[in-house]
């Protein structure tokens, strides 16, 4: 939902970032307002996933230039956990398995960290169980997964459901979903997308990082951005995603070559 007067949640200006001294992001500009759903598309290596990790604060990525303001605050002054508590959420492309740590305990600790920041009461074990059982419905998840270690032995689809369950519990302001559709069959995709749709409100925003149009059949974006060579090359409405589906990314090479020539 596009409302020009809605709060500017995320303001990315000329963002540059490197991993192991190799520049990946080379001047990303993007503004995200409350109520909006953005899709960032592009080939492998275009910088989509790097953008999501930089926003969440992954230590392997170094910001070399530009600014990101989250609700007016300098995002890079905040530790990753502080960003999460303030409402920045990253749904991982490859959720990490943590043997020995119970999923339920992990979810409770992270939910309480966010609640404390929001000035809400901490949930004890019993109150949390009720709370989480409620949220399980968002992604139609079997409660048995709460008793297991975090993501350990989960299938690809179960891991992604667990990510959206975390999103439901943490109630983020800006949710960045990094290739949440990868490795999902069509049923799992619908469930995951359905979860994302249920959680979208006019006060929060979603940034979908994806390769494929098929996720956008389930979640309708307000904006579609095409990334290439570490920048956003083109921005449009959802018709841009449909166009990509038909024409592929060859035009991207031509456009980059033309820019290089110029």
């Amino acid at each position, binding site marked *: 939902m596009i409302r020009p007067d809605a709060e500017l949640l995320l303001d990315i200006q000329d963002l540059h970032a490197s991993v192991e001294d190799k520049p990946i992001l080379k001047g990303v500009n993007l503004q995200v307002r409350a109520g909006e759903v953005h899709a960032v598309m592009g080939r492998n290596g275009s910088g989509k996933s790097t953008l999501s990790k930089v926003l969440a604060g992954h230590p392997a990525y170094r910001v070399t230039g530009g600014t990101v303001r989250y609700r007016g605050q300098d995002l890079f002054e905040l530790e990753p956990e502080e960003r999460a508590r303030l409402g920045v959420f990253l749904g991982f492309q490859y959720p990490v398995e*943590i043997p*020995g740590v119970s999923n339920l305990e992990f979810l409770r600790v992270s939910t309480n960290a966010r609640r404390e920041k929001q000035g809400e009461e901490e949930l004890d074990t019993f109150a949390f169980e009720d709370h989480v059982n409620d949220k399980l419905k968002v992604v139609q998840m079997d409660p048995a997964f709460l008793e297991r270690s975090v993501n350990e032995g989960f299938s690809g689809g179960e891991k992604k459901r667990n990510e959206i369950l975390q999103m439901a519990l943490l109630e983020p302001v800006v949710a960045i979903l990094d290739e949440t559709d990868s490795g999902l069959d069509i049923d799992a995709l619908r469930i995951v997308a359905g979860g994302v749709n249920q959680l979208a409100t006019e006060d929060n925003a979603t940034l979908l990082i994806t390769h494929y149009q098929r996720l956008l059949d389930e979640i309708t974006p307000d904006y579609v951005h095409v990334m290439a060579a570490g920048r956003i090359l083109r921005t449009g409405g959802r018709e841009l995603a449909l166009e990509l589906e038909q024409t592929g990314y060859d035009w991207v090479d031509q456009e980059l070559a033309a820019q290089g020539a110029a």
Partner: protein
Amino acid sequence: MASSVLAPVQERGRAALEQLGLPNRRQEPWRLTDLKRLAAVSELPASASPLSTPLPASLDGVTRLVLNGFDDPLAGQVLPEGITALNAEELEQALGHTLDRCGCAQVWPVEFNHAKAQQILALRVRGRVGPLELVLAAGAGLNATRVLLLLEEKAELELMQVLLAEGASAHSHVLEVHLGQEAQLRHGVLATADGASSLMAHLAVEQEPRSSYALTSVVQGWNLGRVEPRVVQVDGQAETVLKGLAVTGAKQQLATHTAVRFDGPEGELDQLQKCLAGGQSHAIFNGAISVPRDAQRTNAAQLSRNLLLSGRARVDTKPELEIVADDVRCAHGATVSQLQDDELFYLQSRGIAAADATALLLRGACQEVIAQLPAAAQAWRPLERVMESLAP
């Protein structure tokens, strides 16, 4: 108890020690050991005082026996049905049999125990019996103890062994277990101390066919520690599970030397040894598996996973597989790593502070082994004890 039985053993031990002398670094099993600390242990006087802190109550239904080096562990005790103490004649016959079978003769810590042990507890187990807890407590000085367990055919026992110490004290402990055919022993060892005491524990286990032995050991906080489980499947066809957690900090040194031998076909071993080494500590693991010609169709897996918690900690891990039989499956692997950045970042990205994320990951790493301890371990809060020792 049974001083008449122990007298010749002590004599033999003293003679062996004289002949062996203190171990030195040219001997492979002692190459990495801090021998100054070993020498200090060898000179400790016999323990004569209990621990300064009281023991926590045992769980309902658990029979607790306490060996402190001087009080009779069986005084005033009613043993659970199915458990009886061996008489002097039976003891004389059985004592040392398993040690010999496991190749422990002329091994320094065993001979040292022979020379020093004043106390022995020897029990026979028949049928399925209630859980047993064995507490070995060293208040000051050396607590040299010896335990012998004979599990008869089809006997089943859950044994929780707890070794505690404080100050400049040490344990010298030798356990012999004989498992008859189809017998089952679930064995937990929780050995924790405050960093000043030392531990030498030798666990010799002899398994008859179709028996099952599952050892879970959690060892933490010893100035010098040496834990040596040695298992022999006398005719193969038995099941052995070894799960170990070794936690070191400060300048502690802890060595775990396991040896499993299959003297017959179709034996199984599932082994996981984990070490968490912090401070300037040194953790050592040596895992020997021997599969002679007769041990066809043995199925063994050994995994050593080590976590370095500081830049100055050290881990030495060495699998030692000796395989002669040709139709066997023997898998082994070893990893040494630090806490994974990706795991930490995942937790941080969910609002969990770096220090809490680290604690949660360490808890998980420990829990993988601790969760396997027998139920009686709950009385001793093993996870909390280990986590307290890991707190920065």
